[in-house]
């Protein structure tokens, strides 16, 4: 399937009259606000289903108006300005976060060229040659909101939370930035409409099935890394360390209340929508309908693509929620290690490998030469893997040594041969099963789930 | 989409820089993967072998360079004869300074600290001062710095020059902070150098932007062409030239951009000071010469009076303040400032003669100053180097050999005939005289007479005073320091007695290609 004539290219942008631009701006803005309200409700309902409880179901049909009600409630809460806060920065930080979150969405492609009040215009606010960079720039600037908000609060928890978030976001921004290099390499453009067009479809057909053209399949490692780092970038579970309640209360927004808090919340959810939309655009074929639907000729024209785009975003959001409902939070050092020691080197190696393969494909070498190159690279990698120095594990000290090494004045230790009393619940359960009482791991899987 | 034309790279011309850069990367890897004990010997060998290889590459290239094949890498680099001469000078001076940096016989663990980030005076600090041998990162850092300098003197546009400026400056900032003894003053020196250096880089960058606005390009050829045709805004040209010059004169330690020099020279580990005094000076003047000669040849008459004023100020301030110094390292710092003044006088010759005389001066001064700092590393007591001048009193009685060596070096600094100091000063002053700057020559001679006073005072102190309780002993130098000292002194005397070969070489090389 060749890209259709109605596919927008970079030349199609910048011809809208001002009123169409205005309409589009308002629509994108409204889309994001509605998506946020919806996503909050969606997340709460989905996570509730996973935890076998109803979730919000009071306000409106299926509780759909719950987040709207929450938002209105927040507006009528007291706006607290802590005594030690840096007033101006405290005031401006949520604005930075929110504005950056909104602006990042301006280049997302919703669909092909449609007719709007007689004007041919692409279903996309705008597109520029460096569109994806704009998203990265906005997400980078958004970090300022977080770190400044934490710093300006004049309090310990927000400061640490803000620093943690910024360290986390910049670490995962590197991984995210590297993961989309492969997309640019394959598509040869950084404009979002161009990337969507590049995924339009291949000419290879296997019977009724067209060979996959989505970068999620062609560039699977990039896709996986992008999605993982997107979760880290948006501070979502299992990477929600900045807001680790058990350690940092609320993280950078501990001191925020009322509408300022609401803005941070809004920015976080918009960021989620943005990374999902970017993921859709870069890896999941953008607004194009997936295979079975695409058999219907009208699927990729007119206003329908907006639906496919939104559905794809919602599916990705579902994965976000799913992860939150499933995985426990990582420890901070594990988290940073994962970002720096796994994602980044894996990314770089993947980029080098991909560019090597592509260069080899383009070269006019014959089969033997190519095979030799491939074999040579493989041997080189094996040698590197053999020579790579493995870190020596430090010798494990015995318990007695550890006790001897304690400085004077340490806390007294309980006796090492202390017999742990049996957990009464475990005793009850095992007794009902008429099995001998064991000490150690009590089987509490039958206990009530925490709601 | 337009086709992208790939730049042509002349690898033979770029080889010295590429070799040094590669060697520095290897050094980093050695530091990452080699076992702790093996690092020092490996690093030393790798660095010296790299420098020798780079020097061979320079020599090989020197035979083949022509006006046509000098410019490469899409016009960013011009490996012409002056560039090759300066690169060769930098490599040799760098190698000699590296010998001092690598010396570990004088002090347990060498002149560098193992972990510079440990709080000064803490328990951990005392432990590492006593036991741990110094950081081996100094070798790759030195080589990185040298590779930056090599690029700096060969840069054919301002942007490449700026990148090279940063590449050679950043490792130097770090090296300054790594002294094993007197760590606070060392860290202070590094911070001052860094902050002022960053400031100067910013000036350079602003100037670059303005010159781009003037000429619509950043290569020297383009700037020169625009200045010749009179196209472009002349205010931008002057403002840009002034700002770029500030950045370069800062590195060259010319007054009024010299204030960092005494503190940094004093605080930095002495081997690093020698590297800065010799190599940074070569690089800074190499860059200044290229900017003024290749880029702004056409506005020569406009900038000359200002550079001349700076030269006069530099010579006078350097020499007069040198008189009041009581610390030998600070004394040499002010002497280095005054020498920057003499070099500027040579720069104003504005001819092939000016260029060759400045290059001659840089070689002669570089070797002498390294030898001087080598002696300073030897004069020590229990607290490390004894740099206060009063401590040097009566050194001639304690160890006449090293006192003699230092006397030769000081006489060379003072410009006494039969030393390199005389021939090099003669060269720059005659170049300036030829360029109608006779009054500068008079100021130069007067200031060298002033500057001779502090040198001779040290000589008198060493020989005519009785050694007191406080007079430190001279440590027996290790092989590396001995080698550096011998090279420095021999070249000082050789260039003084028989300057012809070097003069021939410099006048052969004196032709910039932009």
């Amino acid at each position: 399937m060749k890209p259709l004539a109605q596919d927008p290219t970079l030349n199609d942008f910048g011809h809208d009259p001002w009123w169409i631009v205005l309409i589009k701006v308002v629509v994108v803005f409204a889309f994001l606000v509605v998506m946020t309200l919806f996503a909050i409700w969606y997340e709460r309902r989905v996570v509730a289903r996973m935890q076998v409880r109803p979730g919000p179901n009071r306000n409106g049909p299926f509780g759909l108006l719950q987040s709207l009600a929450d938002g209105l409630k927040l507006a009528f809460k007291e706006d607290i300005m802590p005594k030690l806060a840096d007033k101006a920065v405290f005031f401006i930080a949520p604005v930075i976060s929110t504005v950056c979150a909104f602006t990042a969405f301006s280049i997302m492609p919703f669909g092909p060229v449609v007719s709007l009040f007689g004007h041919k215009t692409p279903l996309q606010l705008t597109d520029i040659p460096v569109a994806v960079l704009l998203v990265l720039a906005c997400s980078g600037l958004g970090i300022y909101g977080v770190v400044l908000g934490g710093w300006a609060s004049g309090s310990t928890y927000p400061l640490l939370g803000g620093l943690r978030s910024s360290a986390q976001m910049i670490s995962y921004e590197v991984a995210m930035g590297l993961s989309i290099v492969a997309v640019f390499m394959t598509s040869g453009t950084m404009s979002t409409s161009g990337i969507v067009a590049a995924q339009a479809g291949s000419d290879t057909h296997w019977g009724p099935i067209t060979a996959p053209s989505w970068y999620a399949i062609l560039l699977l490692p990039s896709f996986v890394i992008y999605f993982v780092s997107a979760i880290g970038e948006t501070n979502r579970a299992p990477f929600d360390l900045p807001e680790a309640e058990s350690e940092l209360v609320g993280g950078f927004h501990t001191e925020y209340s009322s509408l300022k808090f609401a803005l941070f919340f809004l920015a976080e959810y918009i960021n989620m929508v943005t990374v999902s939309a970017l993921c859709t655009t870069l890896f999941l074929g953008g607004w194009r309908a997936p295979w079975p639907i695409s058999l219907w000729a009208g699927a990729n024209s007119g206003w329908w693509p907006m639906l496919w785009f939104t559905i794809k975003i919602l599916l990705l959001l579902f994965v976000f929620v799913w992860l939150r409902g499933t995985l426990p939070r990582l420890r901070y050092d594990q988290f940073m290690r994962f970002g720096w020691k796994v994602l980044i080197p894996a990314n770089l190696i993947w980029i080098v490998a991909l560019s090597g393969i592509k260069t080899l494909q383009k070269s006019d070498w014959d089969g033997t030469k190519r095979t030799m190159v491939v074999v040579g690279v493989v041997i080189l990698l094996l040698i590197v893997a053999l020579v790579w120095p493995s870190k020596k594990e430090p010798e494990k000290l015995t318990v007695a040594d550890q006790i001897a090494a304690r400085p004077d004045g340490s806390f007294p230790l309980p006796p090492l041969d202390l017999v742990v009393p049996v957990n009464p619940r475990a005793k009850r359960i095992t007794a009902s099963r008429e099995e001998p009482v064991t000490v150690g791991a009590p089987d509490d899987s039958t206990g009530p789930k925490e709601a | 989409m337009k086709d992208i034309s790939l730049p042509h790279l002349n690898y033979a011309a770029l080889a010295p820089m590429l070799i040094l850069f590669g060697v520095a990367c290897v050094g980093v890897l050695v530091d990452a993967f080699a076992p702790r004990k093996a690092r020092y010997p490996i690093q030393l060998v790798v660095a010296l072998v790299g420098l020798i290889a780079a020097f061979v590459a320079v020599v090989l290239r020197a035979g083949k360079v022509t006006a046509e094949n000098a410019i490469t890498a899409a016009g960013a680099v011009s490996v012409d004869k002056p560039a090759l001469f300066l690169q060769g000078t930098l490599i040799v001076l760098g190698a000699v300074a590296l010998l001092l940096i690598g010396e570990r016989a004088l002090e347990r663990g060498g002149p560098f600290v193992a972990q510079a980030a440990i709080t000064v005076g803490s328990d951990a600090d005392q432990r590492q001062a006593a036991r741990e041998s110094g950081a081996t990162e100094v070798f790759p850092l030195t080589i990185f710095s040298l590779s930056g300098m090599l690029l700096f003197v060969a840069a054919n546009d301002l942007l490449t020059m700026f990148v090279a400026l940063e590449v050679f400056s950043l490792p130097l900032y770090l090296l300054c902070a790594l002294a094993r003894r007197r760590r606070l003053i060392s860290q202070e020196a590094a911070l001052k150098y860094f902050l002022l250096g960053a400031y100067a880089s910013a000036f350079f960058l602003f100037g670059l932007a303005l010159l781009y606005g003037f000429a619509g390009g950043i290569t020297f050829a383009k700037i020169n062409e625009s200045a010749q045709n009179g196209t472009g805004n002349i205010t931008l040209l002057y403002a840009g030239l002034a700002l770029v010059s500030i950045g370069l004169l800062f590195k060259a330690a010319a007054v009024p951009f010299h204030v960092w020099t005494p503190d940094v020279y004093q605080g930095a580990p002495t081997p690093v000071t020698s590297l800065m005094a010799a190599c940074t000076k070569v690089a800074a003047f190499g860059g200044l010469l290229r900017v003024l000669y290749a880029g702004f040849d056409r506005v020569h008459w406009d900038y000359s009076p200002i550079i001349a004023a700076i030269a006069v100020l530099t010579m006078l301030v350097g020499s007069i303040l040198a008189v009041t110094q009581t610390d030998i390292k600070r004394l040499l710092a002010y002497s280095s400032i005054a020498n920057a003044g003499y070099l500027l006088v040579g720069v104003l010759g504005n001819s092939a003669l000016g260029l060759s005389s400045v290059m001659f001066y840089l070689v002669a001064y570089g070797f002498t100053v390294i030898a001087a700092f080598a002696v300073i590393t030897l004069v020590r007591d229990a607290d490390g180097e004894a740099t206060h001048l009063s401590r040097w009193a009566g050194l001639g009685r304690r160890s006449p050999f090293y006192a003699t060596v230092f006397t030769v070096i000081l006489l060379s600094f003072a410009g006494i005939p039969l030393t390199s100091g005389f021939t090099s000063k003669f060269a720059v002053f005659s170049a300036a005289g030829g360029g109608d700057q006779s009054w500068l020559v008079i100021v130069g001679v007067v200031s060298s007479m002033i500057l001779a006073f502090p040198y001779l005072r040290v000589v008198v102190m060493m020989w005519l005073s009785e050694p007191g309780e406080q007079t430190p002993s001279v440590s027996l130098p290790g092989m590396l320091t001995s080698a550096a000292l011998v090279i420095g002194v021999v070249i000082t005397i050789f260039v003084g007695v028989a300057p012809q070969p070097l003069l021939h070489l410099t006048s052969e090389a004196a032709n910039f290609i932009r």
Partner: protein
Amino acid sequence: MSLSPYVPIVGLFALAALFALFSVAIAPFVGPRRYNRAKLDAYECGIEPTPQPIGGGRFPVKFYLTAMLFIVFDIEIIFLYPWAVSFNQLGVFGFIEMILFIGTVFVAYAYVWRRGGLDWD
């Protein structure tokens, strides 16, 4: 009259800024105000607050290291993007140059890794 493709970005930016500024500006007037000294103190879990000094206190030097590493890699990415976009036109030369570039950054990366710069604690 048509507008430059950058104008809509400014438009969305302006609308978002208006909305956000309006929200933070009206927040003190819409909500109630009930004075309570404890409310204005820095938040701590029930203990006497140890507020940060004005302008922020000292925090682990580790964060600076992360920031520096970020800059190194972000600059690498900035160089990788234009290369990736024009990858198809650059051919073998571009491939080798980029291998060298990535390799150089990798040297620094290996050094930092071995020296424990990537370990938290």
